[in-house]
Structures are given as C-alpha cells and as structure tokens.
C-alpha cells in the first residue's frame, strides 16, 4: 500500500509540477489566443461538418483540449494543404496540427512532435480485382499531389514492382482526397492512396464502395509542426500532450474517431522513420 500511495503521490506531484511548468509563452498568454491554420479537406482529421459547417475532427479536438489546458482560445483559419508550411513560416499560425506527416525533408523548416501513427495505404473500388498491393504494379494510382504520398508511392514502386521485374506504378495527381476518390469512382485511376487514418471515415461515408488493399506501405507519424526557433511553445504543448496521453483524454479523442489503434505511447520529436 505504501508503494501505491507513493506512486499516486508522486504522480500527483508530477501533475502539479507539469501543470505549473506548462505555461504558454508570454506573447500567447497575453493575447489569450492561439492562431492555428488547417486544411479542412481531410476528414476525419479536420473537416467542415456538412450540416453545421463547423470545423470538426480529431486534430480540432486535440487542439481544443491543448488550448483549454493552456487557458487560451483558438482563432482558426484555413488554407490549402501546400500553404500550411508557409503559414507557419510567416507566423500566420503559431503551430500546425493538420494531418501533416513528419518527413525529414520538412524538418529543414520545422520541428515535429509526433502524436499519431499513420501511413499511406492503397485502396480500390470494392469490385476491383487487386488482392494485395503487389497487384497494383503497372496500374494507375492516384493521390493528392501536394502531399508526401507521390514520393512514397514512387519509392514503394521501385522497391516492390521494379525490383521484382514488374511494371512501375503510374502515378496520377489529384487535388485533394475528395478529388482522388472521384477519379477512382470514374475509373480515371485504378487505385488510390490516402493516409490510413482517413480511410475508415471515407468507408463509413460511402458504405461498401471502397476496399483497403494491404497494410499501410510505410509507417510514419502525423505530427504537430512548430517553427524551429519556437522551442518554448513546442515544449509546453508537448508537456500537455504527454499529460493528455497519461490521463486518457487523448485516447478518448482517438476512440471517438475509431482511431484508437493509431495511438502513440508518448509524444516524440522528429521521430518518424524515413
């Protein structure tokens, strides 16, 4: 019992010290607001609820919880996916939480706090013949052109198709996830790639329409993106995120979107394997 009470006591102490330490930087505290920019075309991570037009999604919930703990309000703005990094650089946004993957190429301009396991995953129309990813060699595969997926598809194709003497995957660009799925439905492309965290939602929207092909073909993390010179904010947010993982509020948000399996054990910095 002593041991348990000690643990509880220590945890409480830890909670108090973290709560005390995790104060937002002065500028944000004074403004009382966080300015966050998202690309709201990526359900269920961030999207506009079709009936209420409110910004909703896993990232939105996480950000709201973080803001609550920081004692500030969020001012949301929206931008195309490709403008997320510029938004951070131009300080339009304090940090970016918008379904963005931790990629080494992007670490030149930002630091990443990884918070969700993910990976690009092939999917096809249900009636398609492809049984596993290898059947997609030589086929037309579409994905959002502003993401890291085109490069990852090319890499996968080199390793799995061309290395085995099969024809390379033909990459076809799309404007966003919805456009890519439209191209798939029209037969413009044979298969599509999206982050694994978005596929259960897409399948739920159009029941029976899509079939996932194989596991995600590379593993990575979705991450919160901070400016390199903004260590103060990064550390505070990381602490709160760690606390949310410990107290279960993080898990509750993930479960709400059916993504409990994509949880991470603790926040990590620039940790995604490339």
């Amino acid at each position, binding site marked *: 019992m002593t041991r348990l009470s000690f643990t509880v006591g220590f945890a409480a102490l830890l909670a108090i010290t973290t709560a005390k330490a995790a104060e937002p930087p002065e500028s944000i505290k004074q403004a009382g607001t966080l300015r966050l920019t998202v690309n709201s075309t990526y359900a269920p991570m961030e999207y506009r609820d079709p009936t209420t037009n409110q910004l909703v999604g896993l990232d939105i919930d996480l950000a709201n919880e973080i803001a609550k703990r920081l004692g500030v309000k969020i001012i949301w703005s929206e931008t195309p996916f490709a403008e997320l*990094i510029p938004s951070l650089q131009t300080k339009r946004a304090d940090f970016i939480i918008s379904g963005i993957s931790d990629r080494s190429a992007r670490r030149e301009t930002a630091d990443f706090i990884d918070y969700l396991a993910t990976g690009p995953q092939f999917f096809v129309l249900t009636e398609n013949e492809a049984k596993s990813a290898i059947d997609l060699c030589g086929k037309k595969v579409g994905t959002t*052109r*502003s993401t890291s997926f085109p*490069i990852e598809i090319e890499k996968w194709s080199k390793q799995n198709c061309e290395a085995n003497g099969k024809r390379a995957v033909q990459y*076809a660009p*799309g*404007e966003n996830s919805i*456009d890519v799925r439209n191209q798939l439905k*029209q*037969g413009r492309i044979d298969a599509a790639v999206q982050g694994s965290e978005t596929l259960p939602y897409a399948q739920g929207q159009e029941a029976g329409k899509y079939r996932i092909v194989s596991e995600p073909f590379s593993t990575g993390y979705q991450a919160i993106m901070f400016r390199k010179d903004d260590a103060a904010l990064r550390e505070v947010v990381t602490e709160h995120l760690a606390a949310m993982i410990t107290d279960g509020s993080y898990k509750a948000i993930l479960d709400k979107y059916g993504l409990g399996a994509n949880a991470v054990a603790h926040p990590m910095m620039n940790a995604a394997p490339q």
Partner: protein
Amino acid sequence: MRAARALAGGFPDISEMTVARQAHWRRWLAAAAILVVLAAIGRAFVNGQIEWTYVSRFLTAKVILEGITNTMAMAVLAMALGIVLGVVAAIMRLSPNPVLKSVAAGYTWLFRGTPLILQLLLWFNLALVFPTIGIPGLWSARAVDVMTPFLSALLGLGINQGAYTSEVMRAGMLSVDVGQYEAAQAIGMGRLRALRRIILPQAMRVVIPPLGNEFIGMVKATSLASVIQYPEVLHNAENIYYANSRVIELLIVAGSWYLLVVSILTPLQMLLERRFARGTLQITR
C-alpha cells in the same frame, strides 16, 4: 523684362513676351515620392526572404517550359473554340428565327452565369454522371478516356469563352451600319452570304481590341485548369514547390512567364488591328 506696349483699348501687347517656364515643383515632388516608394518596394524584395537562386534555376527548367507551352497551346485552342462558338451564337442571336435566337441567348446565360472553375470541375467529373459516352450504335467509350484533363480544360475554357465572345461578336455586327445589310440584300445576297462577305469583315475591325483583351484573359484563365490536373505552367510550378517548399520563388517564376507572354501578345494585337483596319486607316488619320 520689357514693359509691354499698350495696344488700342488699353490691352498690353504680349506677342513679343517670352513664355517663362513654370517651376513644376509639385510634379517633381510627386515623381520623387513615387520613385522612393518604388525603390523601397524593390529593395524590400531584394532583401526579403526570397532565394533568388531558385528563381533563376527554375525559370528555364524543362517542366516549367513544358508548362508554359501547354498554357499557350490551351489558350490558343480554347480561344479558337470560343471564337467559333461565339460567331455561331452571335449569328443565331441576331437571326429572325425565334428558336435559334433563344437557344443562343440560353447558351450565353448558362455559361456566363456560372463560374469557370465550376464548369471545369463539371467537365472533369462528367464520368460520375455518364460513365460511358458515345453515339448510339456507332461508337462509345469510357467517359474518362475521352474527358482527359486536356479535353476537359479545352471544353470548359472554350465553351465558357464562346459565351463571352458571342456578345463581343454581336456588338461588332451591330456596329456595322444597317445600310450595309440593306445594300447586300438589294443586290440579292442571302443573309449568310451577306454576313460572310459584307458584315463580318467590317465587324472584325471593331471586335479585335475586345477579343485581344479576352485572349489575354484566357492566357491567365488556363491556370484554373491546374485543379483538374492539366499540366500548365502554374500546375507545374505548384508541383515543384509541393516538393521543395519554395513557394514564392516558384510563383515568381510562373508570374514572369505570364508577363512575358502578355508583353509579346500586346504588339501582336496592334499588328492585327492594323491589318483589319486597312480600309479605314487613311480616313481616320
């Protein structure tokens, strides 16, 4: 200065006076202020966070050159389609036949009344409505094989342009004196022949400036086709900055090409105007 001699009636004779140059100091001040502001803007861009090496490296990159070629090809073809549709619609609009008249009016109403980007998305996604298209019994194909990004962009831009051009053409035809129609009729020409031989050549002179204007607009409107994956210059510039995050640099690259093209087109339009004004130039001079 000499004192002016007085003329009759007490008016001074000013015929021999020299005209003093006015000191236009306000003009000088305004010009100086504007130059200072321009210099400051220029300096800001030079010192701003722009990696100019990326601009010069990508200005003549293969994929950018292909992009501007595609941009120009699309602009020319879509404009050609637009002019053909515009002439036909304008002739229909001015026809005495009520069916032709209202169909032409409906065409203008529909395609001028909806945004161009919406029309492009509709053409590109046409296969969601019609999975196969064709002529019954003769030929059919999957809609997506027909509606390539190229054809979707051509139809979207060209048909939309036709709606605007029909109004330009109609204005040109209305600008030709009604006596010309009557004279053509009097010597036994039918309506279409009169249009072809008498009216349209004269209308051309009036429609060239607005058409040139529309064409310059078209060059830039092709950039909207980037959303349906037509590889024009903005689309290709975007693809580069999606990979290397040099957004402003690549936008400067694409912008420079648009400016260059428009700068070349402007004197070309002058030449064209001069050619179609052959009959009238001497009179107006």
